[in-house]
Every structure is written in C-alpha cells, then in structure tokens.
C-alpha cells in the first residue's frame, strides 16, 4: 500500500509539473515582440561582463517600451510592439547554449534572440539558428571566424570582431612613438586569447619588422592565479606586454601585478581593458594603454546620443557604463532599426523573420559608440569606429582615460570578402585612415 501511494505521488508530481510547463507556453500576442536575451548571469564572466550588459539592456528595453529613448529610437518598443525580454544564463558551455537556444525558439516561440559573449557559443549557435530559421543577433563575441568561415541567413553581429582591437593598439603604439623593440603577451589559452595575440603580434611585425617577440604566455582561461606568469614577464624585460584577458581574469591579473610594480616597469596594453574599471575604480593602474572594443565608456564620442546613454545608465546604476552595456544596447538598436525598416515595407504590420533579415542586411545605424555599418560577411557583420587611450589620474585623483586616438572603421577593419588574418598579413591593403 505504501509503495502504491509512493508511486502515485511520484506520478502525480510528474504530471503536475508537465501541466504547469505546458500552461506557460502562451500564444503570440499581436502587439508584442518576444526577445530572448542570452548573457552571462553566473560564473566568472557574470559580474564584470554579463550582468552590466544585461543591466544596460534591461534599462534600454524599459525606456523603449515607455517611448522615452531619444530619436531615432523614440518609437515605442520595436515599431510600436511591446518588447518582452526573456533573459537566459549563458554559462555552461556551447552545447548547453544550443539547447537553451532551441528552447527559446521552439518552446517560448521568441521572435528573435540577442546574445552571446563567448566565442565558442557564437560558433555553435548560428548553424542551429539557420536550421530553425530563428533571427539571431550576436551582440558581443569577438571571433572573426563566424562570418569568415561560413555564411548565414538569419544571423547578424552588430559589433565589430576582435581584429580591430589589436590592429588599432598596434597602430597606436607606433603613432605615439612607444618603444616596441620587444613585445610579450599573456593571453588565455583558447580561441579568443590565441587569435588576439596572433592579430597583435603580426600587426606589430608588419608595422615594425625589427621588433622581437620575447614571451608568449597562454594561461588557462578562468585560472585566476598569475604569479608565475608575472615573474616570467618581468624577467623577459619586454618593452610592451600585450594582454586580451577579460572579466574576472583581468581583475585578478591587475590586482596581482600592481603590487609588484608591473605597470611601472613595462608598458602594458589591454585590448579589452575598460570593462573592469567600474569594479576596480581607483585600483586600476595608471599608464596602461587600453581599448574598449569600440568607442565606449570613457572613450565614447561626444554626441547627443552618447551623452543621453551615459547619463541615463549612470543615474540608474551609479557607475559609468563600460563596453558591455554599450554593446548590448548597440545590438538592440540595430535590431530595432531593422524591424522598423521591415515594418515600413510591410505596410506597418509586424514583419516576419525573412523581412527583418532582409532589412538587417547592410543596415547602418547610429549608436552611442558611433556609426555602425553592417558591411562585412555580405551585410551580416558590423564594423564600427574605434578608440585607444591611456589611463591617467585626473586632478581629483580619479582614474580616467586620456590621449585618446580615434580610428575610422575602415582603417582598422578589413574590407568585405577578405579574412582579417589575411588582411593583416598582407599589410592592411586598402585601409582608409
């Protein structure tokens, strides 16, 4: 009898959970646009990256729904449709993300998915997205391979890929007359770190053939301990040390290297160095050359749109927005423009996925970080202007970025149809600076 009751309880609980699951699959609303948002909400990439990105996204979506964003983003929601966002955690690896993606598309029936910080996820998602015919906007990840090795119909990336970050830094070092007779690098041992180092070291070699490579270190991603690496870099006495570390790894590296005088003894360049500034505050070292993967945060351009965005974010969260919120908002803006363009063509009715994808191709839109042009990968991959600067203390003793040099998008990005690495190897043919 007891056993019978037990199995009855088990069966009914399974049944009950199934019913609640099925009950949540609600129908498509007319005036609604369902958007799956995937970003790191747990793990080492959450605090410095995923969470601020989603904070920015959340705030911007709220303002869009209230119709409070400035022109040309002043239409309510997406073309009058209310945006309903479904946030999903990006942690857990690419295979888990493929599954979450399918759940978003097949179970929640989202109209589009915006997301992905990790390059691995960006490599895995597009083929599934095309298979399921799901409109997908990659908002952050860096690997150039997404649209260089393949082409997709429903996938777009609204931010420049990583080649720009390292090309611009190499140019900056030379323009500013830094000693680059010897270089060393510390990058994570996976695609992002390896690609970043390759792009940087080859760019330097192209621009200054005599410089010598001293040390190439590739610690494990999320290792968090860099004592040995810092010693090795100090011993190598390289004039410039390049790093594409990001998130918690970058924070740990800075905190462990600073007490050893690392930043005073060598010129350090961080290709994606700004997003830990809000967290570290004045613990951030002086004299570091850094990029923000675009004109973001303290290196943002002086436009009305940027002034609005910077202030809105600052007022809401009490810290300045670094690259993650900028990039997510850039993705949302691109998506909004594409939808509204498609809607106009469709006589003001909600456009379907094919219409939005058509409108997205080759789109140009003004974002807080400057003009974004979907020029590469046959109109699926964005290029954008870039800025590199150097950290210094202002007169109140706060860390800020000075000596900013701005680069045109066409100066630091390859033209359509040429792979980034081939473009660097060929010595940047056709660069328009």
């Amino acid at each position, binding site marked *: 009898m007891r056993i019978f009751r037990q199995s009855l309880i088990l069966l009914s609980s399974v049944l009950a959970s199934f019913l609640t699951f099925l009950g949540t699959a609600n129908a498509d609303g007319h005036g609604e646009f369902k958007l799956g948002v995937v970003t790191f*909400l*747990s793990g080492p990439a959450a605090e410095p990256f995923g969470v601020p990105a989603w904070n920015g996204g959340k705030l911007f979506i709220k303002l869009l729904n209230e119709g409070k964003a400035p022109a040309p983003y002043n239409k309510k929601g997406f073309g009058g449709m209310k945006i309903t966002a479904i946030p999903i955690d990006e942690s857990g690896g690419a295979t888990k993300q493929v*599954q979450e993606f399918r759940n978003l598309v097949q*179970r929640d029936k989202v109209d589009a998915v915006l997301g992905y910080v990790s390059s691995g996820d960006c*490599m895995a998602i597009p083929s599934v997205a095309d298979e399921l015919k799901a409109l997908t906007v990659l908002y952050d990840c860096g690997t150039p391979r997404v649209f260089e090795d393949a082409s997709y119909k429903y996938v777009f990336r609204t931010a420049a890929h990583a080649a720009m970050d390292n090309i611009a830094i190499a140019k900056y070092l030379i323009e500013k007359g830094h000693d680059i007779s010897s270089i060393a690098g510390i990058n994570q041992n996976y695609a992002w770190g390896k690609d970043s180092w390759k792009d940087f070291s080859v760019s330097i070699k192209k621009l200054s053939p005599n410089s010598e490579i001293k040390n190439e270190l590739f610690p494990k991603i999320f290792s968090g301990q860099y004592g040995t690496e810092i010693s090795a870099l100090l011993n190598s006495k390289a004039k410039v040390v390049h790093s594409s570390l990001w998130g918690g790894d970058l924070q740990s590296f800075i905190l462990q290297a600073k007490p050893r005088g690392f930043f005073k003894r060598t010129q350090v360049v961080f290709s994606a160095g700004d997003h830990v500034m809000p967290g570290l505050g004045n613990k951030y070292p002086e004299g570091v050359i850094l990029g923000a993967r675009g004109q973001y945060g303290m290196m943002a351009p002086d436009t009305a749109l940027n002034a609005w965005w910077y202030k809105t974010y600052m007022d809401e969260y009490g810290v300045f927005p670094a690259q993650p919120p900028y990039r997510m908002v850039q993705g949302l803006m691109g998506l909004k423009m594409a939808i509204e363009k498609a809607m106009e063509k469709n006589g003001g009715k909600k456009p379907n996925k094919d219409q939005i994808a058509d409108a997205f191709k080759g789109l140009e839109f003004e974002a807080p970080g400057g003009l974004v042009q979907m020029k590469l990968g046959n109109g699926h991959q964005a290029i954008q202007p870039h800025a590199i600067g150097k950290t210094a203390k202002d007169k109140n003793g706060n860390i800020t970025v000075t000596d900013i040099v701005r680069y045109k998008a066409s100066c630091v990005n390859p033209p359509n149809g040429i792979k980034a690495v081939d473009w660097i190897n060929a010595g940047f043919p056709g660069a328009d600076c």
Partner: protein
Amino acid sequence: MLRNLLNNIIFQSVFLMTTLILMGIFIPNWLVFVVTKAIAYGLVGLGIITLMRGGLVSFGQGFVFGIGGYSAGLLGVHAGLTDAILLLFISFIVTGLVGLIIAPLLARYRDIFFAMLSLAFSMVLYGILIKIDAIGGSDGFVLPESTYFGIKPTTDYADYVLYVVSILVAGFVSILLRYYYNSTPGLIALAVRENELRVEYLGSSAFKVAVLNFTIAAGLGGMGGALNGIALGHIDPEFTYWTTSGEFVFISILAGYLSVPAVFLAALLLELVRSFSGRYFPDTWQLILGVFLILSIIFIPSGIGSFFKNFFDTFSKNKKS
C-alpha cells in the same frame, strides 16, 4: 498465457517504444528534442549503472562521451559520413574498443581510485582537445546535418526522425542489457559488489567482470556522445569536462541500479528541471537545480528505479495470492 506475454521483457519494451514514438507526433517540438537529449544522457547513465552493479562508479564517462561525439563529428565533417544510425553504431564500436584497451588498467582499481583514474583520463582528453586547433580547439565544431539510409529529412521532420531513431536505439539497448544483467556474468557482477574475495574463491574472476562491464559502459557512453552531438549539431571539449561526467553520475544515482528504463526517466527529469529553472530563474537556476539534487538524494536514496521495482513486486505478489 496472457500473463506470460505481459511479463515478457521484449513485449513490454516494444509496447513502450511504440507508445513513445506515437506520442512524439503530438508532443511539442522542444519536448521531442529534450527527450532525444535525455536518451543520449540516459545511454551513458546505463553504462555507469552497468559498472555500479559491479560496485564501481566512473567519474570519467565524459572520456568516452567525448570520443563518441568527436568520432561521429569527425567522420561527418571529414569523411562525409552523415548516416545517423551508422554513426551511432561506429561510435559504439570505436569507444568500446578504446574501453577494452584501457579497461585492464582501470579494472585493477576499486572505489575512489577507480573513479579518480577514470576522471583523470577524461581530463587528459579535455586538455588535448582544447589544444588541437585543427578540430576547433575550445570552440569545437559544427556537425553536418544527418541523413537516414541516404535520405535527408527536411528540417521540420529532422528532430522527429532522430527522436524515433533514439527511441529505437534506447529500446534495443535496454532489452539487451536486461538479458545481460540476468546472465551469468551479469549476476556475478552483483556478487562482486557484495563480496569480491568470495567470488574469486568460487572460481570466477572479478577482474574479467570489471573489464567486460567497463567495455560495455564505454561503448554505451560513446553512443550517447554521438547521439548528443548529432542532436545538438555541435561538439566541443565540454563533452569531456568533469562537470559533464558529474551529470552522468548524478543521473545514475537518481535512477538507481534496479531498473533500466528509470535511467532514461532520470535523465529526462534532470533535463526538464534544469531547462525550466534556467528559463524562469535565470539568476538562480543553479540553486533550484541544487535543491532538486539534494531533495532527490534525501527522499529517494535508492533511486527512481526502486519505485518501479517495488511497484512490480507488489503487482506480481497480488497476482499470485
């Protein structure tokens, strides 16, 4: 006569498989996919259960899971072999052979030593895979779409076809394993679990049983990996990471070693809990998952399978009286 038929394991399995295949037409697309993935994980879980019957737990099934997935993927990408059924079969053979090669080394160890050594194998493979850029390094690579006997189903039906294939594979494997568990070596495994020394004195070899079980577990793990890779369309070194292996161990513990179908149910439950907690509690989904794991270990310590077994035992007792 009727009761004999009802008690017949093949009849039961065929009935269950037919029901599930028919059900697949009506349940939503996402659930079809989740069931397919649960079967992939369940196959690996079955392997661990085979080991558990002999008193061993492998913390490194990610090793064979990864080999199976990568062999299916590499054959698809480089040899143009996309037939899902053939790939599943090849992965089974390949990982079975790999299992047979390393089994004699592993089978000399017991308990935590066995678990740790198997874990070491999987982490070594992980370390190698993330370093080989030719096969995507840490990013992994995308698999070509699968075919079935030379026919490539349209994307609307691809999920369902794979679902049917995985149900058939799971059913077939379950029947074979049931017969194996009831065979002489299968029962000796239980005896080894109770008292290894006594089994040796009675003239059987605990070592041989462990080797056999590990080989079976490896083959099943490889097949699960291949199925998972084919279903997801993407493979990366995460397949071999220790957290993946940990999930398999949890599925086996949740299922218990008493019932074969319970493994698939456990895998499905875990998958559903994880995916819905991720959907509705994006910030705290790990917490929900953790609570679920703790509660299931406290309240069903001998696994979901114990429900089944108890249920069937009472059922047959009632019939007899």
